[in-house]
């Protein structure tokens, strides 16, 4: 059983998804989905422990040896991302029942929701676990299709157009990636990532490979929502059901960042990608512009989910910035922020979900006085918001530290200053919400139901994330320590 863990982490949710279609009974399917999600998380934890113990794990699907067979290759980087995705999947699944009953218009079709949810989880885990390029494309499309479906389940009719817009842009991006894979296959004859890194040795400077490189950059940027290809994200996050936003915001773009890391460090090699191709000339400015403009736009949003969506675009900018440094500290910052942001944004969107459940709206005016009416929810929001700003003792501080350090190491003090200044922008948009919630009188309620705090089933998973935000902000051995080891192995500076 132990040696099948790499494929089990993908298979368990994959097989469970169609089973959800058969389980029509409400409680049964909910319980089943939650159990599957936690089982997947347990498998991912075991995988990480094994990788920490034994080093890179290589698994042959069906016993066919690579490079002809499909290989699942787990090293520290993917094990780390697997834990994030599976963990968020489990926590959001546990959080979901009460919220779905309020937000999904045809609530009796809950089993369809869980089917799509588990499929999306499968896709994301599959992208992360696999060591085969075409497999990445297939799972990318699986996760993308299920996320289009999930987003379209939102109550507002704009959820449909947002899902459609995401579909068009996302499919274009994924097809670009497919073109890139095809061109690389033409030049090397292999689809296995580790093998391709070897096979590319002689042909790196051919025009085909350079064109493939270009297609990858654009395709991944679309899926990752790097400025200016981020246009699908604000609408998709704002109008999707809260559960979906919380899940996707913490995982989908992060997995795309993982693809960036995998392709440009493992397959192409960082000397080629950041050395001769100077990818950082492209990535760094776009990341910086994304950070600043998205944060500025976020300040002026009145729909708080939309505000948090723009904040996500900015945070992706931080991750890409860290990667563009191509140094140990820079990569550590980028990778650890991948994890940290997942925690923060999920907590924030879960808080918004609680607010939607009680107030029915995410407009900032509806949040007046919520500090008094929904103390636990708002406290979670404030805590995660403080982490966005980068206050010490929270995870956000750790990411910012590494990013600034990496910038200073390369003498890029204006970049370092920008990273810190953008924290102030985050402070502005977080504090807007804090002031409205704590300093204004709550709206007069006409009798039938005063707003009370969210039910325990919503509060507990959210607070689990908040505690994680503080825990991993104080003791970072598990997150930054592993990120550093992953960074070193990506850069080839460690065995």
């Amino acid at each position, binding site marked *: 059983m132990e040696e099948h863990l790499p494929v089990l982490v993908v298979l368990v949710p994959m097989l469970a998804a169609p089973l959800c279609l058969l389980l029509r009974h409400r409680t049964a399917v909910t319980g089943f989905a939650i159990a599957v999600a936690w089982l997947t998380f347990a498998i991912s934890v075991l995988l990480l422990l094994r990788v920490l113990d034994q080093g890179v794990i290589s698994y042959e699907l069906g016993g066919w040896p690579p490079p002809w067979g499909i290989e699942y290759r787990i090293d520290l980087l993917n094990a780390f991302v697997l834990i994030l995705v599976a963990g968020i999947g489990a926590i959001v699944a546990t959080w979901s029942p009460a919220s779905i009953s309020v937000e999904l218009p045809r609530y009796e079709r809950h089993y369809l929701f869980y089917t799509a949810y588990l499929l999306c989880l499968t896709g994301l885990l599959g992208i992360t676990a696999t060591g085969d390029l075409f497999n990445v494309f297939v799972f990318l499309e699986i996760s993308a299709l299920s996320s289009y479906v999930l987003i379209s389940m939102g109550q507002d009719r704009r959820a449909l157009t947002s899902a459609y817009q995401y579909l068009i842009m996302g499919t274009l991006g994924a097809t670009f990636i497919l073109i890139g894979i095809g061109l690389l296959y033409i030049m090397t004859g292999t689809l296995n990532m580790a093998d391709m890194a070897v096979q590319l040795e002689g042909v790196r400077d051919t025009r085909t490979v350079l064109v493939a490189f270009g297609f990858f950059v654009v395709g991944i940027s679309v899926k990752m929502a790097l400025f200016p290809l981020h246009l699908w994200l604000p609408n998709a996050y704002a109008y999707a059901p809260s559960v979906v936003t919380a899940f996707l915001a913490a995982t989908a773009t992060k997995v795309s960042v993982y693809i960036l890391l995998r392709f440009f460090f493992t397959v192409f090699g960082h000397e080629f990608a950041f050395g001769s191709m100077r990818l950082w000339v492209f990535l760094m400015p776009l990341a910086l512009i994304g950070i600043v403009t998205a944060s500025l736009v976020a300040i002026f949003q009145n729909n708080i989910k939309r505000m948090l969506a723009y904040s996500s675009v900015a945070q992706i900018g931080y991750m890409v910035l860290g990667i563009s440094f191509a140094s140990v500290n820079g990569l550590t910052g980028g990778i650890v922020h991948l994890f940290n942001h997942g925690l923060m944004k999920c907590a924030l969107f879960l808080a918004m979900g609680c607010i939607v459940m009680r107030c029915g709206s995410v407009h900032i005016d509806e949040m007046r006085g919520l500090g008094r009416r929904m103390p636990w929810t708002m406290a979670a929001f404030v805590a995660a918001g403080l982490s966005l700003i980068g206050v010490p*003792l929270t995870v956000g501080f750790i990411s910012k530290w590494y990013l600034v350090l990496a910038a200073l190491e390369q003498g890029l003090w204006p970049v370092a200053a920008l990273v810190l200044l953008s924290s*102030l922008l985050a402070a502005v948009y977080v504090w807007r919400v804090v002031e409205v919630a704590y300093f204004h009188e709550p709206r007069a309620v006409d009798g039938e139901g005063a707003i009370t705090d969210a039910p325990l089933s919503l509060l507990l998973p959210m607070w689990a994330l908040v505690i994680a935000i503080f825990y991993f902000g104080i*003791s970072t051995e598990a997150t930054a320590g592993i990120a550093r080891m992953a960074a070193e192995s990506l850069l080839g500076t460690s065995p």
Partner: protein
Amino acid sequence: MSPQTAIYVAVGLPLVGAALVVALRRWPNLREAASLATSGALLAVVLTLLPGVQAGGRPEARVVEVMAGLWMAFEVEPLGMLFALVAAGLWIVTTIYSIGYMRGHHEVDQTRFYACFAVAISAAIGVAFAGNLLTLFIFYEVLTLSTYPLVTHHRTEAAMRGGRLYLGILLSTSVVFLLFAVIWTWYLAGTLDFRPGGILAGTADKGTLAVLLALFAFGTGKAALMPFHRWLPAAMVAPTPVSALLHAVAVVKVGVFTVMKIIVYVFGLELLTGTGLSTWLMYVAAFTILASSLIALTKDNLKARLAYSTVSQLSYIVLGAALATSAGVLGGSMHIAMHAFGKITLFFCAGAIYVAAHKTEISDMDGIGRTMPITMTAFFIGSLSVIGLPPFGGAWSKWFLALGALEADKAIFVAVLMISSLLNVAYLMPIVARAFFVAPSETGPSDDDEGALQGTVLEANGGSSIKEAPTFCLVALCATAAGCLALFFFADELYQLLTPIVKP
């Protein structure tokens, strides 16, 4: 208890106190007792560390490795010891004062007040005992955040705006300048530990170090160096006990303490005197001293005048640090204690006047010395200490600061100190003089203020009634006034405690 345990207890005890306060929120007397008990216990614990430090020991404790090579660690050295004693001692006094004030004024949300107070004190002790720049930065930010609910206590529009300015300036300076400087120091020196003689010697050229010093100085927004001083008057929107402890003692002292610690233990006195790196800082501090004293003269609101006075006094300490001579550093460090007692007395009196007579503007305070003699006498004592006249503590710190300026061959700053003392007289003495020697103006409290007047009403001979502040308030301000006097005589103990900083 072992010194290590004492450190942990000192930082953690106020947090326990905060939890107790919240738990006891339904029983106000028990809740206040919890605050008093915690503050008393804290002082006791901090005192157990004193003999060890006086003997030359430097107790330390390592808590957790936050990032690779960076620990949250504590180390008690004389400067931190002094600050911890000041903070812990004055917490007791302020708690007593707060009980009188908050109840006398029928304030709402008292539980949140006492709880946030305790958290803020915990952060202040954390800063005092910080063993490296990372730990100091962590608790510095915790202090900013935990004092925000205190500054915006009244939850009015004005409180919100004041809070915005407070948080805006403090967060901006700490994130953009101070954190930048901390990470840069880590990059240059490979360590963030506080070491006698500093850690930056030989790590970079003079230009880089000058920029670094500027980032540290302006990044420590709590030291209220101009132009980043505006948060201090803005924070006066808070209830007076908050202003008293936090902005006359804890928050601002954390600021100047940070500057002093960075000068002594990160840059090192030799590096600074050798290269003249900090000369510009002396001039900035001098400018702040004079400019804010002049602004104080124009303010009619008593708390605003005291706020600008604080800005000025804080720069005394920064000047002492920038002079980087042994007398300068010692004078500045002593001033941390002297000014704390002096200013807190003045703020206590301001609050007492507000609670008892409902007055905030100095022009309304004519003749108030007759109805509130104890308060105004304490005010007088506090003023003398701030001005720097014997037999009050402030005299000693000013003396050493002047000596420090001479040691650095910068006699101009002696002139600055003298002019500043004259300005202090100009903005403090008239208040006292008018309180005692001028007849009260006809504008008394209006009728609808009747209900708000609280206090001890005594019938004295001659028919004029004495409406003093609530008893608890009086006890507190008399205690701190007595402290100003006592510090004059105990200055030598302070000096002996602090000397190892400059002569390790």
